[in-house]
């Protein structure tokens, strides 16, 4: 770690000189060069379990294809270094991703010998570095463009559409990741539904309980301190520990209360995971409801009172709408957190995408891990973008985004 500190510290004080080259673009160009010329693009394995061998881009594609992809990526690197306009940089990043992603599928088809059903091709360091560099370029361009909420939703839809198109077109079907998917397509969608049910169901339950609780906690100061303190202690307990603590009482309940067993409540499985996610979700919902309500200016509530609004009307028509952006920020935290934590539920038999992650860890099959991890990350990312946009929409046009 010391070396990292030492290399970054001098840079802080020196270099006031103005360089015309874009510095972030230069970092991206260096990443791209390493990815193209010093790292394997794809990994080839004779079967699912043996160690893989790296294949450089020139080996992974027919010569003309490799030259074409390299040329496109080098143009993108040039744009990153020289072009300042965010729109051009975004277009360059999109063009780069549009070359790299299909190229991976193409290399899988090219590297797999005809008729060989055991061979596996996976993305290697070069592909990941290229994706990282291009995603950095795109993220930087999008940050600088300062898109409004609707434009960000549109960008998300375009990206999702492009990925869906790539997957549906069959261009990636020779990749090991999709072979893992094809082997368990049914269980994939079953675990996907289970994952969403765990994450969204516990969030909905937490909103149903947390909103009224937050409103009460806002009204009664004594309740507020107690509730927030208990919830923050719950939030501190690591997920797997909370699952473990819940397993004992739920197991007892299932063994001694016939109704609980009939409802499907068991010591292990989805029930402890659902309850744990619900408990974790309460703090952001209750805490943000309290914060949002306490930020409503007293002058506004006074005016509402002066207009003759009843307590209930004030709450529903004035206070809650004004507190909405803060409450939604709590919902965003809950959603992103739950989508990630639901992965751990697989450890106690709760299902979800974590099933593939832990199976993959057990078999040291990285593609199986990715089959569970990639959808989880994609869902959390989409949820974050969508809720950020909703928060901005709830704030209304008068507020500037930071």
């Amino acid at each position, binding site marked *: 770690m010391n070396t990292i500190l030492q290399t970054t510290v001098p840079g802080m004080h020196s270099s006031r000189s103005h360089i015309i080259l874009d510095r972030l673009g230069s970092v991206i160009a260096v990443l791209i060069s390493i990815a193209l010329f010093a790292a394997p693009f794809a990994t080839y394995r004779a079967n699912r379990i043996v160690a893989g061998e790296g294949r450089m881009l020139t080996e992974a594609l027919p010569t003309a294809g490799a030259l074409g992809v390299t040329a496109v990526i080098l143009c993108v690197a040039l744009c990153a270094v020289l072009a300042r306009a965010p729109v051009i940089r975004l277009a360059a990043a999109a063009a780069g991703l549009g070359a790299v992603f299909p190229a991976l599928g193409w290399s899988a088809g090219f590297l797999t010998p005809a008729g060989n059903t055991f061979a596996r091709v996976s993305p290697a360091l070069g592909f990941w570095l290229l994706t990282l560099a291009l995603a950095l370029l795109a*993220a930087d361009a999008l*940050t600088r463009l300062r898109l409004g909420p609707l434009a960000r939703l549109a960008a998300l839809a375009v990206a999702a559409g492009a990925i869906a198109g790539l997957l549906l077109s069959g261009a990636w079907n020779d990749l090991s990741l999709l072979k893992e998917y094809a082997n368990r397509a049914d269980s994939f969608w079953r675990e996907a539904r289970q994952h969403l049910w765990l994450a969204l169901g516990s969030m909905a339950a937490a909103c149903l309980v947390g909103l009224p609780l937050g409103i009460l906690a806002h009204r009664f100061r004594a309740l507020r301190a107690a509730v927030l303190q208990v919830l923050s202690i719950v939030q501190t*307990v690591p997920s797997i520990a909370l699952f473990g603590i819940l*397993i004992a009482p739920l197991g007892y309940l299932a063994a001694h209360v016939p109704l609980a067993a009939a409802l499907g409540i068991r010591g292990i499985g989805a029930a402890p995971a659902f309850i744990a996610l619900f408990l974790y979700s309460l703090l952001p919902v209750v805490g943000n409801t309290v914060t949002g309500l306490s930020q409503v200016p007293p002058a506004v509530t006074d005016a509402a009172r002066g207009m003759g609004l009843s307590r209930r009307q004030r709450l529903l028509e004035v206070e809650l709408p004004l507190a909405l952006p803060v409450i939604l920020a709590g919902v965003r935290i809950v959603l992103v957190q739950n*989508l990630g934590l639901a992965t751990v539920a697989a450890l106690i038999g709760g299902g979800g995408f974590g099933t593939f*992650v832990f199976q993959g860890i057990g078999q040291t099959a990285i593609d199986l*891990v990715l089959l569970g*991890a990639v959808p989880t*990350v994609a869902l959390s990312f989409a949820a974050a973008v969508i809720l950020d946009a909703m928060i901005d929409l709830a704030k209304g046009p008068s507020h500037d985004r930071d």
Partner: protein
Amino acid sequence: MSLRSSAPRVAALLLLVAFVTAPQLFSFAFEPLTANNAPAIYNQGSLLSLTLSHLRIVFLATLASTMLALALGIFVTRPSGHEFLPLSRSLVNIGQTFPPIAVLAIAVPLVGFGEKPTFIALFLYGLLPIFENTLSGLTGVSPQALDAAKGMGMSPRQRLFQVELPLALPVILAGIRLSVIISLGTATIGSTVAAKGLGEVIIAGLQSNNVAFVLQGGLVVALLAVLIHDGLGIAERVAARRSGRPLDEAR
């Protein structure tokens, strides 16, 4: 800190220490949960050594991520690194949508089983909250304070170490606290990839269908996390009092 509010803390700490050093004393509490004469107390290793290796990996990973995150946070808030500030903000936002388990799982095929993937996951994921809070702490220093320091003839280096960092310290500490708590949880899951830690107790209980193991592992991890969270919270309040500003900005 009044005596009344610290009494439960001390009691919880004593209970934890007593349990990990002499767990057999508590076997009466866990016996009702076992079946078929299964052991009531974890017997495949000492709870004390598991606790210590759990704490060790969390400490080392947090130390490493604190150093890098602080250096990066300082870099992007200097004039020479300003170009990277907006991007690093969005990267932190994007990075935090990655579940820690995904980082752990992806590290395993790359570096093998054991402590290494756990350390990498703790380190990488631990960076985000510290970096985020370093940014908000350093950018939240009031311009007046900076102007005053400039007027006193302080060099940029002196301003950083004598004004900006001390003022940002409570917020940075809050980030470190968040990072430690996330790491404690991720290290527990690290036991699925054969890192030594308290997760072993829970996983052994799940595998052998022994609820007593699952419960005691869960309780030890939970108590540990709550006590550490609390202890770091006290450190934050001390730092906030020293820097003379209320803690409401810190999370």
